[in-house]
């Protein structure tokens, strides 16, 4: 492929590192759709993009940070959230968006996710859940359905998957939603809400990985989209305990949590800083 033809403008060109296109994502992959929704939401939200930073871990989804024309950090596998925590606490003016994969955020990085949510660090986490480790060639993940075939569960996954929104809710996230890449508008709106939520905001995006997951589970890219259309129901405010992913029975999408509670920084300032210092800051 040749690099983008400059005469054809995409509405997101100003937010893309067009000199890095073509990207690495496979044909039929859903990451690009989730990424585009994320950029569109950033623009639509009205947040100051000069003060907006994207942080990714490692994986196909983790390449997101490499394509956004903003300050962007591609860190280590699983560690995007603690890195983002350091960025945010060191400069609370930054809007920090973590864009990464299910393996990155919930297997190797699972502990950081629950602690980020518990502290209510004011960041937005977008997780592309493709039910497997795409980048390394399709191994089992903490999100892989029971019985699904992957390269390390050649006869089927003996374990069950995490319900990510339930975990986010239980750990204290202030915004929790789930969409699929077929629900582009809802997903974009939801990421926008998440960006505007003051607190730890989590958006799970179901996304096909036809090359590594689909292929081994008789699911072509279009089949995944069909499942997203036919086997999902939108039920805002559904209880997070009802959100197991089971495409036989149907998968619930929607916004499940949207609250405001003091953030990590609010509490730190109120508890640890001398009151006279806070007054000085207010006056300034």
């Amino acid at each position, binding site marked *: 492929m040749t690099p983008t033809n400059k005469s054809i403008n995409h509405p997101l060109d100003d937010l893309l590192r067009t000199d890095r296109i073509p990207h690495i994502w496979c044909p039929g992959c859903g990451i690009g759709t989730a990424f585009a929704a994320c950029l569109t939401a950033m623009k639509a939200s009205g947040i100051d993009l000069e003060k907006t930073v994207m942080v990714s871990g490692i994986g196909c989804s983790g390449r997101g940070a490499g394509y956004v024309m903003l300050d962007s*950090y591609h860190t280590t596998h699983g560690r995007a959230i*603690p890195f983002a925590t350091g960025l945010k606490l060191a400069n609370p003016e930054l809007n920090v968006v973590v864009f990464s994969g299910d393996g990155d955020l919930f297997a190797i990085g699972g*502990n950081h996710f629950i602690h980020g949510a518990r502290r209510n660090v004011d960041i937005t986490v977008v997780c592309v859940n493709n039910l497997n480790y795409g980048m390394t060639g399709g191994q089992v993940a903490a999100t892989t359905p029971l019985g699904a075939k992957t390269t390390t569960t050649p006869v089927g996954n003996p374990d069950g998957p995490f319900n990510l929104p339930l975990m986010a809710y239980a750990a204290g996230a202030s915004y929790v939603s789930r969409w699929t890449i077929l629900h582009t508008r809802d997903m974009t709106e939801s990421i926008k809400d998440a960006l505007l939520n003051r607190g730890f905001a989590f958006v799970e995006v179901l996304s096909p990985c036809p090359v590594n997951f689909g292929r081994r589970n008789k699911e072509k890219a279009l089949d995944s989209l069909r499942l997203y259309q036919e086997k999902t129901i939108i039920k805002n405010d559904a209880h997070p305990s009802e959100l197991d992913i089971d495409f036989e029975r149907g998968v619930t999408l929607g916004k499940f949590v949207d609250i405001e509670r003091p953030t990590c920084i609010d509490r730190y300032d109120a508890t640890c800083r001398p009151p006279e210092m806070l007054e000085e800051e207010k006056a300034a």
Partner: protein
Amino acid sequence: MKPAVLTGAHFMTGDVACAEGALAAGCRFFGGYPITPATEIAEHISGRLPQVGGTFIQMEDEIAAMASIVGASCAGVKSMTATSGPGLSLMLENIGLAVCTETPCVVVNVQRAGPSTGLPTLGAQGDMMQARWGSHGHYEIIALAPASPQEIFYQTIEAFNLSETYRVPVLIMTDEMIGHLSERVVIPEAKAIHTVSRPKARGRKDRFKPFAPGPNGVAPMAIAGEGYHIHVTGLTHDERGYPDMTVEGQEVMMSRIVGKIRNNLKDIIRTDSYLLDDAEIVIVSYGVSSRTSLAAVDEARAQGIKAGLFRLITVWPFPEEEIRKLAARVKGFVTVELNLGQIHLEVERSAGGLAPCVLVGHAGGTIITPDRVLKTLKEAF
């Protein structure tokens, strides 16, 4: 409310002096995780940082602590963590991230005896090679080894200055004995403390190349939110910061991040000496072991043996040129350290066969007594 620089004479432990040194250096972010014998650094700084406009956070583990300080430094704030052996083992991957992304930060290791949980409350110097090579891949790093609370105060400032100058993580490789030792620490006035900040990004924002080196091989650093739209990755990258997955890309990036240290050894390396000018036998030591070595030198001199001490303040990069010069004229080297032979191997390598090298080592848990040093020195030479 106390000021950031606690000017005056104090009686404090090495751990507390380290925390005060960090504050005096301008450290305003600490991401930590408790571990003996480094915990007191976090405890002390957790109370002090919010009073001086900084932030302390106890993360969920050392992996997160290290990741958080790299993130905070990318936001433009001088950052630090402190740990001991098991924690350092967990920090290594993100120390590598800081090396590769050239993010300044300071990591303190108050060494205890290992391997594994080892002797949690007792000191050692067994992580010296881990400090050098612990993260994967080939790289250069800076490590300092203070020998007293007063020195830890100054070396912590120095660690930040070196880290900011060269955009490299700097390790302070102290030990339980120094960390828990209380001594007089004199803190000068704030204006007498020399602090350095990273070279700042300048010029046209759309043309800025975040990894294009300046005259000393170090690139000016853009921080998050300044409008440079930088991309920073732990993948091999080019001057724009973009991934470059080629053999040539690897070579260019590696020669720069290794070269910025190797080409500035004179500016980086600091050593100290005692009665070295006419010495025939040179004791090489650092940290707590250099204190007992000092007594051994005095005793040897009293017995008519021309011994002297070559004390490492910078352990990495290793002062190999200085050792080689000494090797050409002395009878031999005795390396004194609380492990079973790590820096000893470096001394041997640097001496290049020109002078014999012996080790006075110990697996850790207690200090090496001057008697033992003296005995070995007499037996060997």
